[in-house]
């Protein structure tokens, strides 16, 4: 018998003749963590869907050996019974059910009379929480009370409850704070020590480098290589992922910074559900023409809320003054902002960015549709011509300009959303986590674009939770912590440590 827990051989899966993955191998030993890397659309998710039998046995070719025997699962239930549990990128929690109810969803413990045995369920759930060192969670409270990071851990508790032998984590940290990520990574290390195997899928290569023993890289559906992590570093992984060497992740370009164009003075915002709580607390800042202003901070520091307030879409109470070109402006709705030349690319692309059923092109022109009308009617040809220009300019990869945007990859969707917010020719562009969940190539395009805009004199405010990105792009960095502005640094010799210290609220010596 082989010493592998899982062996996937020569897996090929096609959709209508298009091969999504072609001849992929993946092997996992007991107690081993395999990092699975690849750009968006490389076929990672497809491979995991084959493994978890979302695509049942027979719809793909190749062979899966599980504990030495061939696995022919027809549905997720069968793979879960075998001990393969997948934790998806998007959390699959039912917000209004309690933590315990979520953990036992579909496998509720029952009393002899057939009713749900809440006492036993809560007790079991608490035991699981103790194993995860999450003693501060009340398992009888609805899940929505807890942050994304905590929910992620509840998701893992659910997997433990299913006696998982192999845990598949698909981008588990994309919505987590730094400390939550820390907890998760430590937990995985501990599981490994107890013999659990895992497949870790992430764009965050530092995390992969930290916990993976072996790394498998796929590109365009084909197997590029599998190597022990000891022989690799993040740069080598990137090279394998993109097929060429990325010398410079951040294509810095010189640009001149001019006079102040936008000023926010003592902005405060209050929470929607809890109007007593201040989420943005007396924040003032200014931004200059052609300046790239990075905004760092932990998730929940109030950065998105601040951006929403500036763009006119914060639903809760708010106050503060905003000046554009020295004149005070009053923005009540996003359309006021767009008219004045302040545009925002929102953080949550799916919910706030794309109009899923509409064509890519129509998404792009949504903000300035009036421009293509004459006598009240849309001049389709003029509009289409502009759409083609934008698609070429932004390098949006789409088979047809009017293909529904939902069918594109995340990176291409993001490029379209950015294009939509550039067409109004903004003076101030707010980018909220512009590169979240998109692949290295698309990231690079977006960075290039940011510098191009700065050269043209646009003031760019970029909110990002990725420290290297903030430091690699910005001219100046603002740091927020618990709603307050805690740092305003010129990006010269600025270190991650310094930014992080401000972000977690450690006392700092004021710089700049």
């Amino acid at each position: 018998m082989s010493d592998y827990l899982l062996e996937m051989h020569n897996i090929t899966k096609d959709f209508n003749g298009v091969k999504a993955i072609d001849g992929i191998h993946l092997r996992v030993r007991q107690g081993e963590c395999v990092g699975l890397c690849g750009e968006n659309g490389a076929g990672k998710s497809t491979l995991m869907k084959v493994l978890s039998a979302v695509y049942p046995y027979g719809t793909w070719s190749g062979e899966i050996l599980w504990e030495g025997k061939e696995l022919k699962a027809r549905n997720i239930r069968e793979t879960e019974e075998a001990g393969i549990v997948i934790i998806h990128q998007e959390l699959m929690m039912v917000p209004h059910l309690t933590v315990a109810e979520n953990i036992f969803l579909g496998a509720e413990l029952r009393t002899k009379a057939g009713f749900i045995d809440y006492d036993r369920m809560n007790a079991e759930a608490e035991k699981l929480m103790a194993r995860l060192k999450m003693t501060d969670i009340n398992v009888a409270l609805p899940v929505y009370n807890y942050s994304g990071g905590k929910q992620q851990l509840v998701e893992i508790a659910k997997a433990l409850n299913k006696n998982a032998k192999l845990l598949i984590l698909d981008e588990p940290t994309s919505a987590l704070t730094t400390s939550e990520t820390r907890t998760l990574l430590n937990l995985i290390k501990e599981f490994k020590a107890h013999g659990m195997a895992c497949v870790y899928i992430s764009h965050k290569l530092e995390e992969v480098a930290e916990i993976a023993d072996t790394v498998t890289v796929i590109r365009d559906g084909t197997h590029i290589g599998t190597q022990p992590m000891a022989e690799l570093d993040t740069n080598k992984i990137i090279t394998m992922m993109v097929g060429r060497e990325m010398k410079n992740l951040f294509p810095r370009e010189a640009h001149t910074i001019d006079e102040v164009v936008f000023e926010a003075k003592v902005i405060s915002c209050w929470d929607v559900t809890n109007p007593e709580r201040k989420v943005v607390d007396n924040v003032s800042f200014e931004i200059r023409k052609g300046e790239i202003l990075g905004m760092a901070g932990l998730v929940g520091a109030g950065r998105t809320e601040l951006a929403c307030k500036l763009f006119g879409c914060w639903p809760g109470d708010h106050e503060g003054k905003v000046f554009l070109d020295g004149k005070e402006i009053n923005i009540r709705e996003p359309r006021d902002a767009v008219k004045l030349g302040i545009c925002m690319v929102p953080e949550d692309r799916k919910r706030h960015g794309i109009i899923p059923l509409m064509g890519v092109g129509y998404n792009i022109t949504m903000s300035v549709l009036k421009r293509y009308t004459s006598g009240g009617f849309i001049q389709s040809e003029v509009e289409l011509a502009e759409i083609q220009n934008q698609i070429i300019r932004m390098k949006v990869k789409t088979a047809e300009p009017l293909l529904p945007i939902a069918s594109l990859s995340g990176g291409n969707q993001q490029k379209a959303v950015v294009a939509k917010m550039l067409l109004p020719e903004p003076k101030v562009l707010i980018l909220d986590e512009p590169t979240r969940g998109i692949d290295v190539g698309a990231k690079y395009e977006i960075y290039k674009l940011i510098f191009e805009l700065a050269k043209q004199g646009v003031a760019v405010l970029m909110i990002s939770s990725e420290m290297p990105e903030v430091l690699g792009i910005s001219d100046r960095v603002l740091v927020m912590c618990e709603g307050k502005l805690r740092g305003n640094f010129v990006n010269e010799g600025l270190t991650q440590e310094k930014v992080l210290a401000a972000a977690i609220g450690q006392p700092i010596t004021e710089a700049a």
Partner: protein
Amino acid sequence: MTLTKKDVRKFLSEYKIVALLIVIVIIWAFFGYLSYDSDLGGSQFLTPRNFSNLLRQMAITGMLAAAMVFVIVAGEIDLSVGSLLGLLGGIAAVMDVTYSLPLWMTIPVVIIIGLFFGLMVGWLTAYLGIPSFIVTLGGQLAFRGMVLGLTGGITIAPVHEPLKFIGQGYLPELAGDAGGVLLFLVLVFLALRTRMNRQKHNLTVPTMPAEVGRLLFAGVIILGFVLTLNDYQGVPVPVLFLLIILAVFTVIGNKTTFGRHIYAVGSNMEATRLSGVNVAYVKMMVFALMGLMCAFAGLTTTARLAAGTPSAGFGNELDAIASCFIGGTSMRGGVGSVSGALVGAVIMASLDNGMSMQGIDTFWQQIVKGVILVAAVYMDIVSSGNQRN
């Protein structure tokens, strides 16, 4: 060549309207066969007279369905249109019969009241945030109550000739012919203009034979339509209105920013708002259009019955909503077309008409229509591959 299931599915989802037209042909062939009577010299269903009747019957549902598409595409629903239609028809009857007011006063007043109520429903939904299901359910009750109060629960008759013409009149033969020719010329003009514009912007254009073939096909349909109706008494006035509404609404849906915004709002309201679109205004205006169409449908109903009745329009909202769904409008918003909804209305009217002609009991008619609605939406789900499993 063998047709796989996948090919059929792809065809159906791309040419939804073709699939619906095939359904109509099947229904007509079926009733045509059932109503065949050698003594009377042919099928009683497939006659110019019945064709004319069928179109007149569907005109009212069609008017409502045309605006209902936009309401549903915008992600809302309107359950109040039947009652509002009754109220507006009742107002028309009272003005015409009780006060003998001229038509040029009655029509604008009814239209203004229709727009007012539409705007009110829209404002309550879009600006106050009350779900449209609730607002219009309340409207259904309230408007029906107003009709009963207005008419005192009795039929108000008879209306004067000019009003009757709106619902019962026919276009003179010559006017029908001229209209057909005009429509064809407009189509040719638009095709040529689009072609030139596309070439100007370096976009691909269909080949000339394909273009000519398409136009000829449209010409034959128009010709057949006008000749068939002229063979009976001419194009019915309400059908003419419906065709104009179809044209106007299709242009609104495809060629105006308002139309584009309706689809965007229904697909993702938040993203549309963040793109700088005034989403509340779009939603309110969609309901205003619905109110306008209720006014037209109310006038037509009163004219057709030559009377205002307290039960006018009862249940019409359901026919209109069903027509939209049969015509491929998505429950979840963002997808749907006016032409599809009107084809849906033709299907509903054909079933009504054909079954009545066969002397089938009304209770059976309702059962069949209910089954057809569910089956049609299931077909739509299968063809778009949106099954849950």
